[in-house]
């Protein structure tokens, strides 16, 4: 699974990337500002985008609107310091799939990320078949002639397109 992390706070981004890599073994790309995050999202396919709201150059809400404006269905998990109902409603209406209020629990972040990817049904990761092999990039499994050969390999980042 490939996750795009858009977060301007370097230390937090380091921790989040490490947690996503160490826990569910996701491949993580990190963008430091909104413009870079938007560019990453345009040029690559991701299973999930973890998006901070207050970003330099382009704020998270604008990134979200641009994403949905391109009809990009990638699940987006927003990290926000705002907890008011109004801002949450605004976020969800703008196209966010879920949100986490800072300071959040890393375990909860990982669980929500997994859930969002499950609901996304691996749209960004098609089933690869050939040579009698069937590689499910969503479930991270490899089958040969229907028999499970590999399950949850150490890293599947190389399989991602």
């Amino acid at each position, binding site marked *: 699974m490939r996750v795009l992390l858009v977060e301007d706070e370097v*230390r937090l981004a380091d*921790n989040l990337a490490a947690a996503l890599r*160490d826990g569910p073994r996701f491949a993580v790309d990190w963008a430091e500002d909104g413009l870079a995050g938007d560019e990453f999202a345009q040029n690559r396919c991701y299973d999930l985008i973890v998006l901070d709201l207050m970003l330099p150059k382009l704020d998270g809400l604008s990134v979200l609107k641009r994403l949905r404006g391109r009809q990009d269905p990638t699940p987006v998990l927003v990290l926000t310091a705002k907890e008011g109902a109004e801002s949450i409603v605004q976020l969800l209406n703008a196209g966010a799939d879920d949100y986490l*209020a800072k*300071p*959040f629990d890393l375990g909860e972040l990982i669980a929500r990320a997994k859930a969002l990817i499950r609901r996304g049904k691996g749209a960004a990761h098609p089933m690869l078949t050939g040579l009698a092999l069937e590689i499910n990039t969503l479930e991270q499994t490899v089958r040969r002639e229907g028999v499970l050969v590999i399950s949850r390999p150490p890293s599947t980042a190389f399989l991602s397109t």
Partner: protein
Amino acid sequence: MHRPRVIVSKRELLEHLYDYNWEHHSNVIEAHVSNLRKKLAAAAAKSAAAGPEPAEIIETMRGRGYRLAAEAGGRSNPRSGAGPMKSPLLHRSIAFRLIVAVLAVELLSAVLVVFLSFGYERHTHFHAFDVLLFGHADSILGAVQDAEDAQDNVMLVKADLHVPPERHLRGLRLERPPAGPLTELAGRRPRPYAAAAAQPLFAVDVNGREYRIVRIYGSRVVDPGKPGGGTQRQVAILYGAPTFYVWKTIFGTVEFYAGGSLLLLLVTGPLIAWLLHRGLLPLRQLAALASKVSVDSWQFSPPANARTTPELAPLTHAIESVLQRLERSFVQQRAFVSDAAHELKTAVAVVKSSLQLLGMKSRSVEEYKAGLERCLADSLRLEEIVANMLALARQESATPGSGPEPAADLAECLRRTVAQLATIASLRGVQVEVACPASSRLSCSHR
């Protein structure tokens, strides 16, 4: 007591005492009110002054807040000691006070009109009455004719009299004047001021009824055709009439004025009250709108007449200006708090995630050490953010000009800049010199 009988909500008290973000479910206000009531009760027990029960000074308005009871009977504030008695009108509305003032002035005007009309009518009617008396006395003098006797006396020819009613003639006598001044009519009790013979007018009481008497002098020459010009007879006419009818007319007129004034008062009083009530409508509307302004609602749309009325326009403008400034301040404060919360939450999220990351899997001692060092660095950064925010808050809350203004030494700054550029300058063969007074300080104003 600044706001007697005004209900103050618990939230307003909390915001005034602490902060608008104070936990509203706290019972701190109830506790303070309870303590205040106990202290007031103790103070009242020591004081001998009679007054309302101490527990009633702070009234609880269920579901709305608290209210200070109004001072009964204009009692002075216990804090200020025995102060002057306050008028009960001071606690009334402006409309009520204006109406009372206008009605009082109207009533006073009516009384003055009655008194003035009495004086004027009395003067006018008695002047006319005196003219009448003199006229009748002249008529009587004209009716004094030669008696056609040997002593050359004169007599009153009643046929020549042209004075009406008999009652006017009741006190009439024709007497021969003695050598001295004329004597008064027998049996009359002249008043002291009228006793002097030189007085042409005086009043007397006749059977309990007041008469006004006029006295005129004249002379008649009997047989002027005789040698020596005839005999000259001195005649003094005293003519009086009761003043009852004059007084009756005067009081009738005064009664008319008094009745008219009262009627006018009755008609104009309600009319003035209505007009004042209506005239003060913009002020009441303005006050009602202003009372609705709160921390939650800054909506203030004064009516058009409040803007156009010369007396209210400055007040309306001032309220709008103050509210706009307050709203702007609140927005800035909220933005500051929001930004501060974001910064703090992010920093806390960094610390928390660092610690959680350490616990996600078993690590070596070195990894733990490195992780703890990162956590320490994150904590220091958090501390720095808090210090910066506190400094910023202090700077924003500081009144401009209240503290010493920061200053910079321009000469020192220039010397440092030249020193930094000295290497490049020497490479390019440029010589840079500083020509600046030793004490060139630049002050930074808050403006």
